[in-house]
């Protein structure tokens, strides 16, 4: 009887040791799986982070290239543009070469379609308002509709011409409006570098009609500032003038180029190029 009792104790001991061992093994396997999942997540996060960093790094460099000729900044709902017109052709050359450098030397696959950026064309978002440069013209052109043209509230335009290049400016057509959703408040300053000419024009204009301010020298047209439907601005200019312009909108905005940048690696990122 005593022998049987001892055997039972032995079996019980062996079974409990085996159960304990199985529990520990199960715990180790569970921890190992968790660790493997954690590592996998970390690798995925690392890939996404790598691609995001590359993307923002390229955006930074493109912004640096553009800023040699055009400074664009945003303060909540106002976009500020400062540049010399016409825009230097060197921007397009430098953007093209930088894209070529990235294509050749980047560890990731970098694909850039930068045709709009090379033409110094930008978008004020989310309102889809275009900022464009075409030969001797500078434009800010909203789309029709409340979310685009409807959101334009103010324009400030400051044009600085070379000394003795201009001597007068006057409205040829003026379409005033009373304050309301169809009105845009404008301030145009026309000056020359010597400050011999320094003219300010403050008006509340009808967004959906045309107003034209001619800039002249001894009666001959040198350039003009035109406001036209829908809430658009055109500056027709001669060579080498300084432009400071701002457009005030009714909502917070940002500026991007209407071009796409794609980074492909273990993760992918495609998007427009943020400028400001």
């Amino acid at each position, binding site marked *: 009887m005593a022998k049987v009792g001892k055997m039972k104790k032995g079996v019980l001991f062996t079974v409990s040791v085996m159960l304990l061992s199985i529990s520990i093994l199960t715990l*180790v396997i569970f921890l190992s799986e968790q660790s493997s999942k954690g590592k996998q997540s*970390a690798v995925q996060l690392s890939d996404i982070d*790598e691609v995001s*960093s590359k993307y923002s790094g390229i955006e*930074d460099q493109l912004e640096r290239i553009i800023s040699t000729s055009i400074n664009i900044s945003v303060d909540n709902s106002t976009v500020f543009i400062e540049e010399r017109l016409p825009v230097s052709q*060197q921007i397009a050359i430098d953007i093209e070469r930088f894209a070529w*450098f990235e294509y050749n030397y980047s560890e990731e696959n970098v694909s850039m379609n930068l045709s709009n950026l090379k033409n110094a064309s930008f978008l004020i978002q989310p309102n889809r308002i275009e900022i464009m440069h075409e030969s001797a013209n500078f434009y800010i052109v909203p789309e029709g509709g409340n979310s685009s043209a409807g959101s334009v509230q103010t324009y400030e335009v400051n044009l600085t011409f070379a000394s003795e290049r201009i001597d007068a400016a006057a409205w040829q057509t003026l379409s005033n409006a009373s304050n309301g959703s169809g009105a845009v408040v404008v301030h145009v300053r026309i000056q020359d570098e010597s400050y011999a000419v320094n003219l300010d024009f403050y008006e509340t204009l009808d967004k959906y009609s045309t107003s034209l301010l001619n800039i002249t020298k001894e009666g001959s047209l040198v350039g003009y500032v035109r406001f036209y439907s829908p809430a658009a601005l055109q500056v027709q200019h001669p060579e080498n003038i300084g432009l400071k312009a701002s457009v005030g909108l009714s909502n917070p905005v940002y500026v991007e180029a209407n071009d796409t940048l794609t980074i492909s690696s273990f993760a992918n990122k495609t998007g427009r190029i943020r400028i400001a």
Partner: protein
Amino acid sequence: MRTKGFVFTIDATLALFLMVLVLITIIFLSAQADESPYVNLHMLRIGKDTLSVMDKQGILTSGNVSLMNSSLNSTLQRSIGAHVEISTYYYDEGGFNFMSITQFGSNIPANASIYVTSRDFVAMSNGRISNYSIARMTLWQK
């Protein structure tokens, strides 16, 4: 006597088995603690941020090694060592030509886990790109 010896052997084997299991678990858990997968991510992020700050401040494009060294030391945590190598190219006749390598930071230790990140940047001069560079940063925990 024979039965006692047999039981003793079984008992010793089971004890050994248990001890080995406990040891494996301890080693596994300590290895997990040492090689957290997020350390890699964290170190690379530190490297990228440091390069980005130095680029945006114009320090990487300055070519001034002592300025780059002091900026690196003031930006990085003391527990992290770093070495930076900048390869610079210029554009000529339709292609990119190697120009120079600039190195700064500490020497890379032989027996440390290292983490490598990079940043491409351009230097501007007289309103145009003067050269194209790739900065490669190697980081390690001191």
